[in-house]
């Protein structure tokens, strides 16, 4: 139980970084983003509708990403999200902060195991 709680906190803390990273290269729709997180983390990280969309909308509301309806021939329109300039800056900060954090944690936890 305690471990599960810790994982949830980790997931919450990194969720923004994950979404921004996935949108860095190209625009994607919501389902695609959550699927990619699941696939690339090999199932470790999963988002359901309830946890994912509030997060997505908050990112949009803060101006880090922007969504827009895109229609493709023969398909229903979907809402695609892309990173804004501001979002890119935030991503860069998050990324280095994350690397620092992980590095620091590894240095400590790694030493303990050595």
């Amino acid at each position: 139980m305690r471990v599960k709680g810790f994982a949830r906190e980790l997931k919450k803390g990194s969720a923004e970084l994950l979404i921004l990273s996935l949108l860095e290269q190209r625009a994607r729709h919501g389902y695609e983003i959550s699927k990619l997180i699941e696939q690339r983390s090999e199932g470790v990280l999963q988002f359901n509708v309830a946890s994912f969309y509030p997060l997505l909308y908050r990112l949009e509301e803060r101006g880090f990403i922007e969504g827009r309806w895109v229609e493709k021939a023969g398909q229903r329109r979907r809402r695609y999200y892309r990173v804004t300039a501001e979002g890119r800056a935030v991503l860069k900060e998050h990324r280095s902060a994350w690397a620092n954090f992980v590095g620091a944690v590894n240095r400590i936890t790694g030493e303990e195991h050595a």
Partner: protein
Amino acid sequence: MPEWKREIREALAGAKLETDAAREEAVVEELEQDLAERYEELVRNGAAEQDARRMLSEELRDARFLAGLRPPLERRQEPAVPGLGRQERFLAGLSRDVRLGARLLRKNPVFALVAILSLTLGIGANTAIFELLDAVLLRTLPVAAPEQLAEVRVNHAGRIGSTVARQQDFSSAQWKEVETQQQGFSEIAAWSTQGFNLGRGGEARYAKGLWVSGDFFQVLRLQPELGRLLTKSDDYKGCGVEGAVISDGFWQREFGGRADAIGKTLSLNGQPFQVIGVTPASFSGLEAGFNFDVAVPLCSEPTVQGDQSWTAGATTWWLAVIGRLKPGWTAERAAVQLNAVAPGIFAATLPAEYDAAAREKYLKFTFRVLPAGTGVSELRASYAAPLFVLLGISGLVLLIACANLANLMLARASAREREMALRVTLGASRGRLIQQMLVESLLLSAIGAAGGAVLAQALSRLLIGFISSEDNPIFLPLSADWRVLLFTTALGVLTCLLCGIAPALQAARSDPGYAMKGGGRGSTAGRRGLALRRGLVVSQVALSLVLLVAALLFVQTFRNLVSVNAGLQQDGVLVADFDFSPLKMPVGRRPEYKRELLARVRAVPGVDDAAEAINVPMTGNSWNRFIDIPEKGVHRRIIDFNTVSDQFFRTLEVPLLAGRDFEESDTPNSPRVAIVNERFAQEILGGSNPIGVTFRVTRGKPEERVYQIVGLVGNTKYRDVREDFQPIIFLAESQDAEPDPDSTFVVRSGESAASLIGALKEMAERTSPEIVLNFGVLRTSVLRGLARERLMATLSGFYGGLAATLAMVGLYGIVSFMVVRRRNEIGIRMAMGAGRTRILRMILREGMVLLGAGLVIGVILVLAAGNAARAMLFGVKANDAASLGLGVGALAVAAVCASLIPAARATGVQPVEVLRED
């Protein structure tokens, strides 16, 4: 497949989100797609349909989900400031901004008035000049397919002969050859202009006449408004006097627009023409700047002009040729075809009186063909450059006005910094703030542009009045066409951006934290804006120096031309033209009659002196011939000639330096005599005494006349005041055995022009009521010749003054602002014992630094821009040190005054009050 949409809606309804319907619908649609895909995936992976559905439904009802949705969805629904919501696009809340802008302008009527007035003036001045440029240079003729029209011109270097009309390319013989040998035009026509006297005797009343060949109206594809237009069948050799076509304007003016004008008789130079038709109102002639009243066939010219006919003259260049290119033909191709037949055309029309050298040149003439869709115009040549320079000058004035406005708005933006910071704090985006500031300046420039467009209508008519004169009226159909509208609109947008962008960017940089702080002192945004404002003032000073110097140069040019020593007395001289051709007097009787007329003019009470002259100096006319003086080695020198009566030099107060004036005893039968000017003696005779020297004039082929120089007079200007003194030979009017039936007198008198004209009219009436009279005042005619310079001097002077004033207002504004900003500092300095002089110096230094920087840049600009105006200056160099010095001095004095006022205010700061305010 479950009904996800309904489920999502229910879930959201339960949460009672306060958001707008559109946003909620979008969320529903997006979630529905996601849920559908997840559902399918679960089922695909082996979950039971019911389980999958229940799992997902539970997620929707998850309290964390609804709580998490609330902040992002609800916050955007009622933004504190319009445009906060990200889905609100560019220009959102525009009407709100416009209303806010209008309210702010109403609240600051002085600011609004200054801003709108300066923009109206600036845009109006620019539009007026552009409208003129448009009418002179850009507008196409109001005829069908104007792009097919082309004019044929002759390349005629070294041509000898006479020009008698504004059209100066073809003789009648040349035109006939071109008409038959050309292939590139489906229709081609020749035309010329002449004033026709509508009256019979007394003071002449002129109609602007067009001589046109038969196809003229077919070339233009014009349809008559009434009656019919002239055709080929009206233009045949020996047609005498038949029909005339009148313009719509003339029809309205002379016939009140009545249909029974057709068939009425018009007297043109005493010949009865019948009105056969009226041209459409849109057509005012081929020349930009000149309209026409009446058009008559070329074939009538010999009858109307009698023995002075231009048609017969092999060396009279009086026609212009215009044609409509055949489909597939270009102007270049037509020129190639014409030049292929050119040797034949010029050989067939070779003037018999030419000598070998003149023949050789004549046979080498060629043709060129130019597009004529915009008509043809001399105005273009003389006014294109001044108009472009004026457009440049007025553009700079507008730029300075914009800088001032930008400065004012920056000051206001600084004052509104807290408002902007508050908006940012409340969530307004930067783009939104920029939009709001730009809308404010757009409002100003839209009003300014509208006012400017109206003002331009009046201004452009005023400008035409400037370059127009009684004997040379300029007719330009001014109307705001799409080019003018586009120009004004572009100016409006440009000014909006120029005035608005800096304050808008400053507003966008507002620091939200600033709104929280209490004081309004020493903010960083203010400092940034201040640097910008100082830059604006520096550029204003620099630009206004350029305009001031330009104004000084043009004013000096005009003054130089007016006060130039023309070598003769211009004041109190009346020019009176007596045309006695209606008397149909035999040539042999004319010399006697002219002598008699001159004697009568001299006898008119109040006349001090009077004389006759073929060319009145400085009125643009000219006449030249080749002369030979074998013993001095002078061969085929081309010299300006004039023919004058005795006392001509006395009348115009030209000094007789040696020898004698013409005398009664100089008759057609006595040895031919001439008087030359000083310049002739220097340049042609190498400074030796000219008296007694003989020269030969090659006139026609068989005729070679020998003249002996009997007098030497001072230099006088010949064609116009701008030229340098040239060698001139004066011949004796009394030796001309076959003069024209026309005498032009120069009359010097102390009487007013009006009373003198009255007396002369009375005298003419007594002599013969049929004499046609024309009067002019020499000074006025000369001044009219300077219309261009007067226009440049007046307008550039006005603009220069305006620019300097605007720049000084800008400087005053910035120094005042600095005083306000540094009030605390000044108070503290004074409290610490700094004297008033020291404070004064400190503030003045601020203004002087800006002035100095502006002047340095301005001087560089003046030196760089000098070339543009060089050709329009007279008696003053483009980099004239005195003008530059005067401009710098004037700006410096004005700048000291402009900064002294706020500086003086600074010394009035009470330290105690300032310190207490803290």
